[in-house]
């Protein structure tokens, strides 16, 4: 049973989206996604300043066996990346909603409709 915090929004591609204290939108992958990937050994993150449309590939998480694309859950600009993942990609496994976050984005359009925790849970069942 994977953990799905109620205060976050989700995509069907297993990204989560949440508010950030100092502005912007935090993005990462869900507990379900990190568990399916197992052992994240490398995360390729975008550059600060890069702009993406919703659904663009913006990052890649790699396990020993497979590489998995991570899509921009919203249209927007990258404000910051989680540089700790360069040295410690395993944070994605250990704390997918906490220290394993991936990027901070500034939305450049109205927020799209995303899944709430309950709908995301249903999409997994």
């Amino acid at each position, binding site marked *: 049973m994977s953990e799905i915090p109620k205060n976050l929004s989700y995509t069907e591609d297993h990204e989560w989206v949440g508010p950030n204290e100092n502005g912007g939108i935090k993005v990462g992958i869900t507990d379900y996604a990190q568990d399916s990937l*197992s*052992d994240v*050994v*490398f995360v*390729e993150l975008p550059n600060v300043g890069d702009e993406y449309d919703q659904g663009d590939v913006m990052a*890649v998480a*790699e*396990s*020993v*066996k497979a*590489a998995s694309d991570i899509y921009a859950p919203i249209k927007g600009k990258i404000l910051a990346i989680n540089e700790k993942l*360069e040295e410690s990609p395993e944070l994605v496994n250990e704390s997918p909603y906490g220290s394993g976050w991936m990027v901070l984005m500034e939305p450049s359009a109205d927020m799209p409709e995303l899944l709430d925790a309950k709908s995301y849970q249903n999409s997994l069942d």
Partner: protein
Amino acid sequence: MPLFETCMHDSHVKLGAKMVDFAGWHMPLQYTSIVSEHNSVRERVGIFDVSHMGQIFVSGAGASKFLSYVTTWNMSRLSEGDCRYCHILDENGKIIDDTIVYTFSNDNFMLVPNASMVTKIFDWFNLKSSDFDVMIENKSDEFFCFAVQGPEAPRLLRQYFNLSITPFKLVRSGNMIISGTGYTGEKGYEIMGPLSESLGIWQSFTEMGAIPIGLGARDTLRLEKGYLLSGTDFNGSQTTLESGYSWVIDWNHEFIGKQSLLSQKEDSYKLLKGVLLEERGVLRPGLPVYLDGEQISELTSGSLSPILKRGIGLSYLDLKVGTTVNILIRNKQLKGRVIQTPFL
């Protein structure tokens, strides 16, 4: 086609293993995580179900001569209790499969070919055996095979069988065949025996501390040591010389493929070399290898070394050790260095 299952299949599923199709078999990829299973073998001890691998028995007055003809090794140099790694070649010197030959006596041998090659090797041997006084039997369905690997493996073998076995030797204990062989580069053994005994052996070894290890870690363990994977590092198009395993050839005997190898020896040819990624990333089979902006080869194997925490791969290259190449990953050229395996 339904997948084959080993005698331990239901136990793997019960343990919660992630199961995958491997060479037509439904096998455990990982029980917990590839990295933790990998580290268990390097630091302590693991147990692998490799019952999908084959057991082909070759016996009779002509067995030694026959096996010398169809492999790269001269079996008259082996004594009772010896295990020998060698290649089975076609007339062009291309590797059909690699195998270990078990010597029970000078007229009684067993070979352990790879799962996907058992039928092919059995048919090939039958095709080539008409001039030899031999009996060839495929008993792959009658045996389990477990690999117990890691620095603590000798302790477990002593505890359970009251045995110690040196590398590349075999001992028969009751109806078990136990050899000092493996595919991890660690101290270890492979245990083969009748299917009815498999569950008891598996349980005893896990109770003594052996951690179940899936095919995922089996691949990273062998790749760190530069060992070949059948169907990946050779697939019918590469010779033993190209694979870098010329030490498995005894040139002082006649064998299928010898003439081709002798003429290849006079030429230059690509050699399977290690590629160590100098930047962060994971290597994958099939990634293109570039030199000075031109694609020169591709990776056969590729992964991440859990110990080195670096991308590692193998590639057929006509380049000196130390050369810097580029590997194209997602439209980015990453630097890699050609090295002599093993990586570790």
